[in-house]
């Protein structure tokens, strides 16, 4: 299994450079090829579950060469990235017919997938940066893909903040290299264990927190997200909100803090503060929005807060030397919410894209009564709304429940209360979506609205089924121990795990 690990980068990268050669006439062939690539990657990602190991690129030993590392956390992220990208690609078959230059779109899409997969499996900090830039640059171009006023403006804003974040991260990488003399995560971690964190490394860590915080759009750094995510075409919004901010921001940050620098109390508090701020501010900004996709984008900020809160809480309990069981529960809640959010938020964005394609508007006030016109989109949107708001038995409920239990057990009653309140406000704002989009009076102008069939419907139903089925990941013990627990263990064991 470990021998095919490079395929996660090579397959999308090679396909991406092949696709523009098809030109305008080979559009159908290009679409088919791109779909085959993403479906193959999703199957491959399922096959990585339970596997672990280190792949040495070009057979150079890990001391001098480049390594790719597969462990529980990496395979969980690969699963999230590739399943969501397969669904988004399926959705694009029909949705992207509205745009010109479809092969270019497919090519950028696959470049982004290659970058994200690379970030997840890379075993050294500099390659993590390189793959992060591949994914980011592809996503800048995709946000501006429509080339209209708003899209270009959002893309420019995103690009400026993204480039600043990248410079911060590269400066951090340089500082880590200067202070430890290596870039491989395992060796760097070992050196840091031996010497402790000096001023240079502490500065590098704070640069990483700001840089990856910008990429993950945590609250003081969130300004670009509500512009960029709604401006992209719907499948790309689904990819950006669903997996890009997680793979590039939260995954990378968690990997560096837990597995390279080691957890410490001040850093854990910073994470908790970022998480709570994102949760609360994100959700209150979301409630007042009347643009469908913009509302969803603010919810992404809020839901990312849950993930960071879970991870920060786990780090704090570990750093204080508390009961590892509760630390493990907090991390489980955070990571499970991460994959859940990947599924339900991409489903919500796909549903919003379906509504936008059918009605031609994103303004909630201009819609209404679409329940009979678009039954499948309505069903998918309802399932995803119930998930994000934490209504049982959908997946979002379980991860929020775990987070609340972990917070109570660790003695943070205030945090538990905030979690529940934010969840209620989320429910409120999605009731608003249901009320204005699908219920109420059908406006005269939307009488002729028709449901989008074919690939868009299939992609939405797939993700809606996943929203329900993913509850099993936590309820069935054997699934939990093979899929989620290894990812949690990687973080719990901290700097020891990537010792090879």
């Amino acid at each position: 299994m470990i021998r095919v690990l490079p395929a996660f980068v090579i397959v999308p990268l090679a396909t991406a450079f092949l696709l523009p050669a098809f030109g305008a006439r080979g559009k159908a062939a290009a679409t088919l090829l791109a779909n085959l690539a993403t479906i193959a990657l999703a199957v491959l990602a399922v096959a990585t579950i339970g596997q672990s190991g280190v792949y040495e690129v070009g057979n150079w030993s890990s001391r001098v060469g480049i390594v790719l590392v597969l462990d529980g956390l990496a395979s969980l992220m690969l699963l999230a990235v590739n399943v969501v990208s397969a669904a988004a690609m399926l959705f694009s078959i029909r949705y992207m017919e509205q745009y010109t230059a479809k092969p270019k779109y497919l090519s950028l899409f696959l470049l982004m997938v290659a970058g994200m997969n690379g970030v997840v499996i890379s075993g050294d900090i500099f390659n993590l940066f390189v793959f992060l830039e591949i994914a980011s640059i592809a996503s800048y171009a995709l946000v501006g893909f429509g080339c209209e006023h708003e899209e270009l403006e959002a893309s420019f804003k995103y690009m400026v903040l993204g480039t600043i974040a990248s410079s911060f991260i590269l400066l951090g990488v340089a500082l880590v290299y200067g202070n430890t003399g290596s870039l491989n995560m395992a060796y760097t971690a070992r050196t840091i264990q031996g010497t402790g964190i000096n001023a240079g490394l502490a500065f590098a860590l704070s640069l990483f927190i700001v840089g990856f915080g910008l990429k993950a759009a945590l609250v003081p750094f969130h300004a670009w997200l509500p512009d960029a995510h709604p401006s992209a075409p719907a499948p790309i919004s689904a990819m950006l909100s669903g997996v890009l901010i997680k793979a590039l921001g939260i995954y990378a940050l968690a990997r560096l803090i837990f597995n390279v620098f080691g957890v410490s109390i001040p850093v854990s508090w910073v994470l908790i503060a970022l998480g709570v701020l994102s949760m609360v501010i994100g959700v209150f900004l979301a409630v007042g929005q009347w643009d469908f996709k913009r509302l969803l984008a603010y919810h992404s900020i809020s839901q990312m807060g849950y993930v960071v809160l879970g991870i920060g809480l786990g780090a704090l309990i570990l750093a204080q030397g508390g009961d590892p069981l509760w630390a493990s529960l907090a991390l489980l809640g955070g990571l499970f919410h991460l994959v859940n959010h990947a599924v339900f938020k991409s489903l919500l964005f796909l549903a919003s894209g379906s509504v936008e394609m059918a009605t031609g508007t994103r303004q909630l006030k201009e819609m209404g009564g679409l329940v009979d016109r678009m039954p499948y989109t309505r069903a998918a949107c309802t399932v995803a709304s119930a998930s994000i708001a934490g209504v049982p038995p959908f997946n979002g409920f379980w991860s929020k429940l775990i987070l609340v239990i972990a917070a109570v057990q660790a003695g943070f009653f205030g945090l538990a209360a905030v979690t529940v309140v934010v969840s209620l406000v989320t429910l409120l704002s999605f009731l608003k979506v249901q009320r204005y989009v699908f219920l109420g009076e059908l406006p005269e102008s939307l009488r002729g609205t028709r449901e989008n069939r074919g690939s868009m419907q299939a992609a939405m139903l797939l993700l809606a089924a996943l929203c329900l089925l993913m509850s099993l990941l936590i309820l069935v013990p054997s699934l939990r121990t093979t899929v989620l627990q290894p990812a949690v263990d990687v973080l719990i064991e901290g700097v020891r795990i990537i010792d090879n």
Partner: protein
Amino acid sequence: MLYALCFLLFMIGLYCAVVKKNLVKIVIGLAIMEYAVNLFLIMLGYRAGGTAPIVGRGDLQAGAERLTAHFLNRAVDPLPQALVLTAIVISLGSLALLISMCIRLYDKYGTFDITEIRRLRG
């Protein structure tokens, strides 16, 4: 000292990118930030009076131990140079995209002033 100057250059770039109102000036600020980081990486591996980390035919005759000692004492660290090459290529890519985005923005809005390019709110 040199590192501090390098960091100052980085902050100048950041200031320029954050404060300036002109799209092109913002791009210049971003470029300055990237140059500062590249300079910092190069300086990490620099050694005053060092030699190039290349093994020539004559060096091999001197024997492995002397060669290693020579390398440790004299040669500059080649790794940051490799990193900088990669970083330069990446920043070239993002710079080209930024500039082309500026051109498209100018086509649409007819201005480079960021305060006039405001269709998105909040």
